[in-house]
């Protein structure tokens, strides 16, 4: 397949870098400023070197990406809330041109799911978005295999930064502020960690899951979200007295979405440590399935994008 990649952050760059391994060609790569476009395949290594060196990606305008001949638009621009722009318009343009779209950007799928599905219904192209939930962990494809109707709930840990902070607080008896600073030094938490610690990032993923289970109907404002900022070290100590710990757990069902700090058994499946993520898929006929792994990171998330590309039908 010929890939046009929008967004040259960790995920977009990794998709470009790994595409050849999966037998795909990259015909365009764009960030918000410029693009490099070549119908016979761009020189990926050179483009990535320019990007890392803070030079312009290429000499083309990002708009030119849509004019070139591609099979799949990879939407890997930063997640935005509300109208989910410009990501939503990118997807719309590709679908209206009868192209496939694979999203790593959570915004359009969480905030405007029904509109995306309506556009897809009128297009020869399809949308897929495995990379929006749980990075490298096959969550949506597992639900697709079980069929969404047979899945009653999805629960789990889908934010590595919050999980890292809670794990360190419990292990070292340290307070939130201290561990957050450490996480920022280690590069586990961003300079502005708000969306990770206030539950927004996890909530977007569980909104997407609820949309898949219920075939739409949810956006971020439907989720009940609480963060971990108000959890002191002493709360984790008390939880440990009874063999429990606290994790930022999300739940998605057809009834709604809830994300917040919850008590879970210290040695239970959901109490993953460090930046690891886990999902528990509760099925009607087959009990619970658990998958855990790396929920973020460029190459990890890129594998989810490229697996999606591989699942697309020929155009």
């Amino acid at each position, binding site marked *: 397949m010929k890939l046009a990649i929008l967004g040259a952050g960790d995920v977009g760059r990794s998709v470009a870098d790994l595409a050849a391994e999966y037998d795909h060609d990259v015909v365009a790569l764009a960030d918000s400023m410029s693009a490099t476009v070549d119908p016979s395949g761009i020189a990926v290594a050179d483009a990535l070197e320019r990007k890392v060196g803070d030079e312009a990606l290429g000499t083309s305008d990002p708009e030119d990406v849509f004019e070139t001949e591609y099979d799949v638009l990879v939407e890997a621009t930063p997640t935005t809330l509300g109208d989910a722009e410009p990501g939503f318009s990118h997807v719309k343009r590709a679908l209206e041109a009868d192209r496939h779209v694979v999203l790593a950007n959570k915004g359009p799928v969480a905030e405007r799911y029904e509109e995306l599905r309506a556009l897809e219904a009128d297009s020869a192209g399809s949308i897929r978005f495995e990379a929006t939930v749980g990075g490298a962990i096959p969550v949506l494809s597992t639900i697709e295999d079980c069929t969404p109707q047979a899945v009653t*709930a999805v*629960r789990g840990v889908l934010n590595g930064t919050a999980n890292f902070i809670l794990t360190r607080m419990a292990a070292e008896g340290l307070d939130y502020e201290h561990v957050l600073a450490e996480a920022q030094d280690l590069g586990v938490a961003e300079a502005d960690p708000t969306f990770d610690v206030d539950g927004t990032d996890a909530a977007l993923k569980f909104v997407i899951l609820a949309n898949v289970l219920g075939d739409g109907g949810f956006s971020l404002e439907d989720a009940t979200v*609480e963060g971990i900022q*108000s*959890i*002191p*070290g*002493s*709360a984790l*100590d*008390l*939880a440990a*007295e*009874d063999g*429990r710990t*606290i994790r930022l*757990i999300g*739940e998605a069902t057809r009834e709604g979405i809830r994300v*917040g*700090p*919850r*008590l*879970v*058994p210290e040695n*239970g*499946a*959901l109490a993953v440590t460090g930046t690891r993520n886990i999902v*528990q898929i*509760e099925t009607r006929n087959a*009990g*619970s399935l658990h998958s855990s792994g790396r929920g973020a990171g460029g190459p990890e998330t890129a594998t989810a994008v490229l697996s999606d590309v591989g699942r697309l039908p020929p155009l």
Partner: protein
Amino acid sequence: MMANPPEGGDEDDPDAETDGGLRAYTVRLELVDEPGELLRALAPIADNGGNLLSIHHERGNITPRGHIPVEVDLECPPDRFDDVVEGLRGAGVNVIQAGAEHYGEEVNVVLVGHLVETDLSNTLSRIEDEADAVVLDLSLAAPEGTDGISSARARLAIDSGRSSEALAAIRSIGTDKDLTVVEPLLGGDA
């Protein structure tokens, strides 16, 4: 360990019961706060062939009705347990839970916030009242002193099948008092 007496009532395995053997039971009583009341309440247990294992007398924890909850672990032959409970009731003791039949579910919640300033004892009474739960025990951690943010873990007994409602009630008490309520994750094999 060979000499382990047969009356080592096995709480973990309710089916572990031998001919003429003993089993452990938990009985929850509510006593009036008067001298001699505890002793009076315990007499019917021995009178009916029960053997006291432990008594957890939560003096500091008054129920909404102004009584003192007492948890009694005892052992007796399974066929005598009904007599023990009848004996207690016959003596006018308020038995609120006997054996496993009423206990249903036990859940932990952790509360975080200005627990002391928002009247912890009132918070617990409201939980018992509004969530229809019994506070079995409580641990408090106040590393910043009683004026600061503190945490408390409460172990609650809730009737079977009522956990979701009880937790929703506790959530709304938390909202009223500006406390963070860390609930257990129900459902699924977490």
